[in-house]
């Protein structure tokens, strides 16, 4: 498996580890409009720190397991795959930004908007790394 595909899997796993529990909790205990909600803010911070820790450990393990590949610069296929993935994820991010920035302020408030913004960014990231994995597996013309 190419090093950059492993990195894409690492990002997907880190997001799942950090944010599936966060959004599960959010779904079970919907936010109120009381701001600032320090408890909720701490949970969001914990999810972000958890993601950073998983990424850090993963990067280290991948680096140690194959330093030659980890040090190698991206070749033309890696760059083509990254361009494709960013191109697809861009539209997801724009759609999320429009929904959160233009529509949600009229229907929601407070933490609902914060969580929707975080969700939109995560969705774009999942699409980005998902397309990377898909392209390494299925090919890119």
């Amino acid at each position, binding site marked *: 498996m*190419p090093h950059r595909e492993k990195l894409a899997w690492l990002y997907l796993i880190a997001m799942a580890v950090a944010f599936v529990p966060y959004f599960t909790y959010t779904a079970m205990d919907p936010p109120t409009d009381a701001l600032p909600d320090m408890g909720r803010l701490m949970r969001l911070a914990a999810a972000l720190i958890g993601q950073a820790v998983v990424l850090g450990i993963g990067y280290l393990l991948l680096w140690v397991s194959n330093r030659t590949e980890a040090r190698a610069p991206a*070749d*033309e296929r*890696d760059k083509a795959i990254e361009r494709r993935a960013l191109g697809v994820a861009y539209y997801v991010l724009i759609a999320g930004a429009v929904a959160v920035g233009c529509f949600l302020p009229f229907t929601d408030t407070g933490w609902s908007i914060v969580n929707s913004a975080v969700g939109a960014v995560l969705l774009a990231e999942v699409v980005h790394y998902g397309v990377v994995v898909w392209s*390494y597996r299925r*090919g*890119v*013309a």
Partner: protein
Amino acid sequence: MTGGRLTNDIRTLRFLAGEMSQAELGQRIGVTRQTIAAIEAGRYSPSLEAAFRIADVFGKRLEEVFHWEP
């Protein structure tokens, strides 16, 4: 995009070049072993420059390495 696909004889040419490894070919043209594997399997169409470099490694012309099947 219209139909058709790019095929190649890189696997055969590597064999005829003394079982040159994918890693060695990749190193000589500046791509990874996995990219050579993807090109051989038809999962990646190389840039024109990379295609010329591959042909040059085997001392062949481009059309002797890569073929277009409409």
